[in-house]
């Protein structure tokens, strides 16, 4: 391992070689895992894999699907990373996704009535959705820091509340009056987030998400603020002894995390769904947790991780067209990846542990 690593180092900057080595190993491992899972469910391994691959990368439609599914996974995954690195187990990405989408959709009629459209309207929608998500996560952050309410529990509760509020809004106050279906009005085509080719799902969102990943990486690893958030998450007592205000950093981390998930909701609304109906929550906030974990909670690794899982979900659409199985196989793969990583970490820690004991 070490010699390989050094060789790679000579050719490339160390971060690039790390990234390559890591993704190479992961792709190999995931490939094997995929084959095994497919075989377990009596699916023909090679033809299924081909279907998956074709569905994800085979043509412009496939690539578009992959990108459109990687986008919410990446943004919500980044949200998970920021919060978890600060010691806040935000598992309410889905609720923040929903509240983000809702605030975005609530702003849209206001924009229309002021005759604001095009890119300005889109920016307004996306900003509103980030704010919506941030507010929702901020509640959990505030309750944790000020009232000691466990984030896991509060974000579960807030998820449910967000879903119910969404159902109420889209079937009541925000419902399109003429339609009669529980849906908000459809965004007009000129206000939809830019699609280079309107026939595919490929849209600007993936570029935004990757840009955001770079920004989050920069914040986490190149600013004192990011360092402090990570110190607080790693060891709150050390943060206290060093007179860092952990509570503030934790609330800020939740706000950022919620904003990212909310942004994902806003993009989903303005680029894919075009309106919010009862089925707006597609569970991206939850499915992004394995994306973040597989990336080792590193913002940059989250990019390949999100694209990988996005492509699996995209490909599974194709798989379900020809076989009984579809996206459900992908959940299994996600689960095994997470458990495998957890087991691997434990093993690594055990082999490294040195005894420093005070008698």
């Amino acid at each position: 391992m070490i010699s390989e690593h050094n060789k790679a180092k000579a050719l490339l900057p160390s971060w690039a070689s790390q990234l390559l080595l890591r993704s190479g190993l992961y792709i190999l491992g995931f490939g094997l895992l995929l084959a095994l899972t497919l075989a377990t469910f009596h699916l023909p391994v090679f033809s299924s894999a081909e279907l998956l691959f074709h569905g994800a990368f085979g043509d412009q439609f496939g690539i578009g699907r992959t990108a459109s599914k990687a986008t919410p996974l990446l943004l919500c995954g980044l949200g998970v990373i920021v919060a978890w690195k600060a010691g806040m187990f935000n598992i309410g990405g889905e609720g923040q996704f929903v509240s983000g989408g809702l605030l975005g959709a609530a702003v849209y009629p206001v924009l229309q009535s002021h005759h604001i459209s095009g890119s300005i309207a889109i920016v307004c929608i996306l900003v509103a959705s980030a704010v919506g998500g941030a507010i929702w996560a901020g509640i959990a952050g505030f309750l944790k820091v000020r009232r000691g309410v466990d984030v896991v529990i509060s974000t579960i509760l807030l998820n449910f509340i967000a879903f119910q509020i969404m159902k109420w809004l889209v079937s009541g106050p925000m419902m399109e009056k003429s339609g009669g279906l529980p849906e908000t009005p459809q965004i007009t085509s000129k206000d939809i987030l830019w699609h280079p080719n309107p026939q595919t799902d490929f849209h600007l969102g993936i570029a935004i998400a990757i840009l955001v990943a770079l920004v989050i990486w920069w914040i986490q690893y190149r600013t004192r603020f990011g360092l402090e958030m990570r110190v607080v998450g790693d060891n709150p007592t050390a943060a206290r002894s060093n007179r860092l205000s952990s509570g503030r950093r934790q609330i800020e981390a939740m706000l950022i995390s919620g904003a990212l998930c909310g942004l994902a909701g806003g993009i989903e609304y303005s680029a894919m769904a075009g309106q919010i109906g009862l089925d707006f929550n597609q569970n991206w906030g939850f499915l992004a947790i394995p994306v973040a974990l597989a990336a080792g909670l590193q913002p940059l690794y989250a990019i390949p991780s999100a694209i990988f899982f996005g492509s699996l979900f995209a490909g599974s659409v194709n798989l379900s067209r020809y076989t009984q199985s579809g996206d459900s196989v992908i959940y299994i793969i996600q689960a095994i990846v997470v458990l495998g990583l957890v087991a691997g970490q434990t093993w690594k820690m055990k082999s490294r542990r040195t005894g420093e004991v005070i008698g």
Partner: protein
Amino acid sequence: MSILSVRSIIATIPYAAPVAFAGLGESIGQLSGLINVGLEGMMLTGAYFALVGTTLFPGHFAVEAGFACGTIAAVLLAVISAIFTVWLNADQVVVGTAVNLLALGLTTTLFRDHYGQSGSLISLPSLHRTFGFDALTIAFLLLLPMSWFLVYRTGWGLAIRAAGDYPPAAESAGFSVRRLRTGAALIGGFMAGLGGAYLVLGTTATFTENMTAGRGFLAIALVTFGRWKPSWIALAALFLGLLDSLQYQLQATGIHISAYLLQSLPYLGALIVLSIAGTGSFAPKSLGIPLKSHE
């Protein structure tokens, strides 16, 4: 006040029971220091394998076979979960997330493989009811005092409460916290399986993909809302079921309160209770914290 008649309360029991079972099991797990985010997955597994059990053993004991298969499958999932959280000191939230995905993926894939795409609705034999009560709801009424007794009147109950509060307290008394927590996790799995199986065999008489639809998470919230006390949790579950049925009756009487908002009340209530009291004041002190691995 017809809404709150005895009959309407009894009618809500089948809806409240799945969550109540799971919540009761989860409270024991949480008292020992384990928060099981994978509860949803365990319920779903219980539900699916109840379906498998009844179809594998049709005939007189189809329902019993369903309950047996459902609980066994959920307990197996709890074993996997406990290996990671208790014996490998893995983070409980991470493992719970994986367990949920695993259960969702497995049940959906197997269901589609063996019962065709979700389109075909399956009708299953279900529990026999008299006066709105079936064997399982009666069993639940018995389980309630039994779990109270287990937690507050036996050595094991005392030891798991110590393990969830301050693990060294149990260790110094000579009990292995790992074993205690494993036991509690298995009980949690069993009860979640029972709840899931009941959803199939007692409530809906069918199985659909991802049919638990958040009930597991709801059960986790209930435990907090019920402040880790068995009877409170059962009452909270009943209250929830009542709100659920209240919406239909309100619609009938023409009162315009959104059913959706009404349904969010329990969650909102739980959140408010927690923020006023602070989780810290009732929650087991070591909830969610993995054991430090000491040699």
